[in-house]
């Protein structure tokens, strides 16, 4: 992956199994966002290819097989929470494109992320954490097989973040979707992921893939466990070596 002469990512070769939860860690500027943008067909690879369930990224995009959650919620401020969740269903409808819809209605998705009763609130009437939850509900509305998340909880406080981490694990378990989750937080990466992908910078390459052998379902108390702290120490060391 190149921007002009600058190589942002090199020799990335990965196989991610359907249904897995991967978290991605790495120093700032190592190409974590770029990697998600490659997968989501926002930027083209300089060489090589990305396949999502046997399709090109473009075909997967047109079929709505993946969804993206950004660091800030990116809601449309004039639309209510419910209308924001419905946006993906509206785009393409007039052009006669068949839009995959999940088993859950937008109402049920808002309920799933704990926003029942706030359907008609405008984004500015919601807290940062609530807005991010609306964004997650929006990402789920087409029942994506792959969920790409770029530091979705980076701007939230510790408590809200813990709460949303648990919610995300529930959603993952219920929907069985594959998740690629970029984060800056080592504990968050360990707590959520089955595998942690560690990238290193200049140019961005794979440093290591660490399997997290902690059992699911995971509870907040897991963070006090000695195993958990052992992973923390190991990943911190890897990150310092980058």
């Amino acid at each position, binding site marked *: 992956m190149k921007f002009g002469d600058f190589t942002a990512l090199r020799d990335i070769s990965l196989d991610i199994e359907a249904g897995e939860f991967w978290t991605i860690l790495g120093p700032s500027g190592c190409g974590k966002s770029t990697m998600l943008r490659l997968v*989501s067909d*926002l930027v083209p690879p300089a060489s090589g290819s990305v396949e999502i369930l046997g399709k090109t990224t473009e075909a997967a995009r047109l079929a709505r097989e993946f*969804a*993206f959650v950004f660091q800030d919620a*990116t809601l449309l401020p*004039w639309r209510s929470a419910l209308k924001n969740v419905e*946006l993906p269903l509206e785009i*393409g409808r007039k052009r006669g494109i068949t839009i995959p819809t999940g088993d859950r209605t937008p109402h049920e998705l808002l309920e799933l992320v704990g926003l029942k009763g706030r359907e008609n609130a*405008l984004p500015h009437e919601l807290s940062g954490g609530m807005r991010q939850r609306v964004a997650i509900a929006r990402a789920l509305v087409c029942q994506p097989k792959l969920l790409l998340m770029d530091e979705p909880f980076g701007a939230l406080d510790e408590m809200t973040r813990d709460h949303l981490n648990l919610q995300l694990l529930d959603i993952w378990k219920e929907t069985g979707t594959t998740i690629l989750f970029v984060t800056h937080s080592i504990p968050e990466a360990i707590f959520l992921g089955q595998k942690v992908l560690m990238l290193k910078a200049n140019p961005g390459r794979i440093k290591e893939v660490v399997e997290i052998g902690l059992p699911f379902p995971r509870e907040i108390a897991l963070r006090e466990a000695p195993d958990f702290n052992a992973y923390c120490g190991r990943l911190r060391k890897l990150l310092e070596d980058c």
Partner: protein
Amino acid sequence: MAVTETPVTDAAQSPRMSKATHQRLIDIGVPVGTAFALLVIWQVGVRLFGVPQYIAPAPTDILGVFVSEFPLLMRNFWPTLIEAISGFFIGNMTAILIAVAFVHSRSVERAFFPIAVFINTIPILAIAPILVLIFGPGMTAKVVIAALICFFPTLVNMVRGLQSVSPQTLELARILSASKSEVFWKIRLPSSLPFLFSALKIASTTCVIGAIVGEWIGANVGLGALIIESTFNFRSPLLYATVFVSSGLSVLLFASVSIAEKLIIRW
């Protein structure tokens, strides 16, 4: 203890409640009072120094003329209102359509933006006689002048508004494979509305200026014509009354746009 405390908190709250209403009274009362005091000073000053009425009429003279000449004022109010509103709609619609064209095509923008800037640099007072020559003494010239004066601020604001969409929102649209027209109708246009309304508020007062300037140059009806006529005939109370009606017209249009903004933009 609790029983004796309750009235204390009550007593502490009620002055605070009345403080809020008090504050609101002050907010309204102070400017109104100041305006009234200035009128009184004006009235007393004019009478005290015996200023001739044709130089500075007293407020009561103006009020008298406003009542006695009300039909005349209204007869001249309607044409100006129609010109101003027509100019407002034509000027702003043109600006909005051109802004849309600019945002859709860089080459259109490169070709026409310098021309728009050039038109804007011509003082409206300089171009008005030319327009009256072209369109004659009827309403058309005034509408065109009013439209012209609205045009540029709306064009600039609308272009900025349509471009105010964050890169991330556009990435979201791309991930959803949105078409160009979907991006326009569902994202760009709503994003531009706050920008559009700040331009419309400017236009709501400048379109009245445009219509009046047009009437100065050649018209036998309208508030602008009445201003010229009463000036040349030394009918100062009528002149002042006309000026107040003109500013009343601007306030009316500004308030209408502000109310529309409040109703439409709730975010």
